[in-house]
């Protein structure tokens, strides 16, 4: 899931993926998250990077910290984000996609066809 060689810092990849999972309901309120150490070992990334992502998610109200226990998904507010809120999260990548398509002189129809294909493929 994490791509260390990407230009997007690893902590930001983590923040984006976890917020998406929570907003989409795959991570339900109260669900526990792996410990910093577990995630760091699994992906062989620096534990500080994981801590940084968790701290940001906590500050934004997505996660709750408990003394001596794993972090959990926060029980209230954002966990059941409204559709508009979830869509808002997609705005930036979609802007970039549309811009790139225009620069490549790809038509709207061609882009939608590609999106449909990717959506159905199921390997994304």
């Amino acid at each position, binding site marked *: 899931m994490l791509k260390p060689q990407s230009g997007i810092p690893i902590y930001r990849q983590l923040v984006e993926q976890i917020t998406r999972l929570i907003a989409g309901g795959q991570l339900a309120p109260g669900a526990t998250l792996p410990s910093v*150490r577990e995630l760091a070992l699994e992906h062989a990334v620096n534990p*500080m990077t994981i801590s940084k992502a968790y701290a940001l998610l906590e500050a934004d109200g997505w996660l709750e910290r408990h003394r001596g226990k794993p972090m959990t998904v926060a029980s209230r507010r954002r966990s059941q984000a409204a559709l508009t809120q979830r869509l808002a999260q997609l705005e930036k990548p979609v802007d970039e996609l549309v811009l790139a398509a225009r620069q490549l002189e790809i038509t709207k129809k061609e882009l939608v066809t590609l999106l449909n294909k990717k959506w159905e493929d199921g390997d994304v």
Partner: protein
Amino acid sequence: MSEPVASVRNLSKRFGTKEALIDVTAEVEQGDVIGVLGKNGAGKTTLLEILLGFSPPSAGSTMIFGENSLQLSEAAKARIGFVPQQDELLGMLSGKQQVAIGAVFHKRWDHALIDRLLVDWEVPTDRRIHTLSVGERQKLSVLLALGHHAGLLVLDEPVASLDPIARRRFLQELFDVGENPTRAVLFSSHIVSDLERAANKVWIIKDGRLYWQGYVDTLKESVVRLHVRARAPLPSVVPVPHRLACRVEGNRATVAVAEWSAAKRDALAKELEADVEVEPLGLEEIFIELHK
């Protein structure tokens, strides 16, 4: 803030007329994993060796645990682990004998850890070391530096000869600090993908100077490639602050820039009368852009 684990102050080193290091200043803090990145001959090994007190600086100074590198006490030396680029294993010994020597030299030797790693890392312990492959020797050499739970681990190209699986195990071990969360690691590598996973900070050395130092995340957020598409032909050098490299073809241009922030995009697009697309760069590409 606690005292830095190691520090380098205005360090310069000359070999004859060649300036190997020029006015380098940097610090290693507790818990840091710092990747030292540079082309061959940029001065990485020289920097690590001077820091460890193997040779004197021409100017400036270096300290480890608050002691001058050239006069380290035995207690300070016992808290340092070092893996040199060329291993210093004794070819006539078996792996087992070499490990026993390591255990004798250090008061706090973690037998259980080393026994486990010898198995996990698949290091043959019964054969004489001179019969081992380069990769096996390197694994043994790294393993020996982990046995005494050093407060500062210095590794000069520790993984160059390891296969991807061994490299992954090595990184995992590096982070499984367990009882020693304050351990700092300084490692040079030309395998950028390892640095990218492991390091929280990088030092980029270019022609003997510390060209860039700081957090990997900051570096990735501040060095990007811009794809510019203007309505009219662009000048051969696109006027962008902190420009690194630039390629112009008619009304399109590709420009690598440093000190970028997302907020700058709209202003730049307006100024150039162009669409500006921002491409984030991985560490390897950043390294290459910084050397153009």
